[in-house]
């Protein structure tokens, strides 16, 4: 029986309805469908997409140990005080060796377990074809459609994948910690330039002013934009500076909307995502035809024999993967 991939079976339609009504178990199931790229995911996202676009998506990134999860926990509580429902996607790395992952961000967010306005989901990076950003965005879409006002996406700020995730948010927070010395060098190239708000967490430690000066110096070198990237100090473990941070985050959303940058960002994000989808689909088709005549395996042999160069081989595979085939 061939079903249209956009047609929902009765039980799936029921699941979607329950998710849209905010039922937590249904939301959890929908996220699993989307995260695992199960065949039903396409139909589910097709149904949910018209209901998305309401949430404020906040990216939180920073080095391991900078206090992202603790800060997320504090922001959850602050946004709840402001009567916003909150979704959290906490991303941790997958072991490249075994494919497994330890997801430990929840440990810092346990206080919120009794609050039905909070939904926390841990996710592993997995390193799959479509890239992390695409997978995370789909999970964010589910939470958005299911009525979360604020969605916090927390990632370790290393590597292009994580930078892409942070870029996909409306407001991106970069968390720095005093006394981590040259760590900032590693992070500055990729993440500092996409941060909308810089947070100096653990600001009760020595070296705050030095870090502050350093960050200001870095910012002064960046191209001038209308939004002046603020530097805020927090001590998340003691709930200090959180309300001010939440104000800034909300202020940033207002700025985006009033300046028209909101629309631009959405478009840029969709563009990245669309291109990533296209890449994913091409890779999938090429891999599916790996051992067919003219497929990946044959191209590899011809490359080894120096009969072809990489560009020729790639074009040839692209032709083979073209429309109507797979």
């Amino acid at each position: 029986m061939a079903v249209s991939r956009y047609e929902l079976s009765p039980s799936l339609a029921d699941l979607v309805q329950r998710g849209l009504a905010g039922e937590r178990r249904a939301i959890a199931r929908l996220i699993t469908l989307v995260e695992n790229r199960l065949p039903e995911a396409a139909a589910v996202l097709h149904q949910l997409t018209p209901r998305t676009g309401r949430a404020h998506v906040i990216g939180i990134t920073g080095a391991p140990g900078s206090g992202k999860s603790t800060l997320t926990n504090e922001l959850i509580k602050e946004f709840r005080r402001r009567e916003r429902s909150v979704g959290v996607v906490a991303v941790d790395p997958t072991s490249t060796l075994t494919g497994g992952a330890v997801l430990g961000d929840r440990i810092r967010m346990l206080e919120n377990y009794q609050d039905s306005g909070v939904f926390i989901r841990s996710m592993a990076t997995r390193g799959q074809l479509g890239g992390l950003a695409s997978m995370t965005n789909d999970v964010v879409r589910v939470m958005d459609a299911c009525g979360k006002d604020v969605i916090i996406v927390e990632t370790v700020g290393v590597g292009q994948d994580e930078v892409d995730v942070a870029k996909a948010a409306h407001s991106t927070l970069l968390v720095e910690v005093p006394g981590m010395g040259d760590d900032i060098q590693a992070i500055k190239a990729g993440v500092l330039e996409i941060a909308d708000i810089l947070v100096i967490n653990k600001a009760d430690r020595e070296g705050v002013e030095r870090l502050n000066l350093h960050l200001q110096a870095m910012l002064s070198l960046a191209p001038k934009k209308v939004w002046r990237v603020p530097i805020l100090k927090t001590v998340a473990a003691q709930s200090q500076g959180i309300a001010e941070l939440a104000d800034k985050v909300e202020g940033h959303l207002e700025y985006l909307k009033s300046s028209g940058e909101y629309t631009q960002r959405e478009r840029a994000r969709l563009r990245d995502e669309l291109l990533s989808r296209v890449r994913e689909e091409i890779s999938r088709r090429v891999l599916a035809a790996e051992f067919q005549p003219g497929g990946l395996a044959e191209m590899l042999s011809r490359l080894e024999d120096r009969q072809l160069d990489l560009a020729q081989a790639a074009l040839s595979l692209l032709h083979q993967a073209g429309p109507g085939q797979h």
Partner: protein
Amino acid sequence: MSQQSTPTAADQQPTANPQATPAADRRIRVLIAKPGLDGHDRGAKVVTRGLRDAGMEVIYTGLHQTPEMIVEAALQEDVDAIGLSILSGAHNVLFPRILKLLKDNNMEDVLIFAGGIIPPEEEPKLLEMGIGAVFGPGTTIEQTATFVRQNVRSAGSLAGGQTGSSESWVEPGPDKEL
């Protein structure tokens, strides 16, 4: 054996436009929890790490968890299995509460296993109650991983076996009336 690219039953699901279906990627998700008041989680961490190395995604929630916290985390994370580590002797109080909460949430399809210090003579009662297995000291990670792999709700499809469509996985049993 890693679960990375195991074909799933879902892959064989007929669709009108199979070209556009991205590769499904399902992995076993396990919550490792420490109910109650013991302050020692070395064992839980070893199991967490071990199951990760067996290719699973393991959510670890730390010490001092109430049954409510454990079940809520399991619900939001949509895990296939929950491992309970307990050394305090309070299992006869905490386990029934966890099982009751799971039942209340129609989550009976989640596999439960236990470890730590549990007197062997109390095992049969726990198994009867609905705990899938009790792993005492000396259990290898491989035993635990194998048990989880073979007994989680998605075991059939993860092994590539055709145990119904993925539809049955979306709505396993009583979940529907929720």
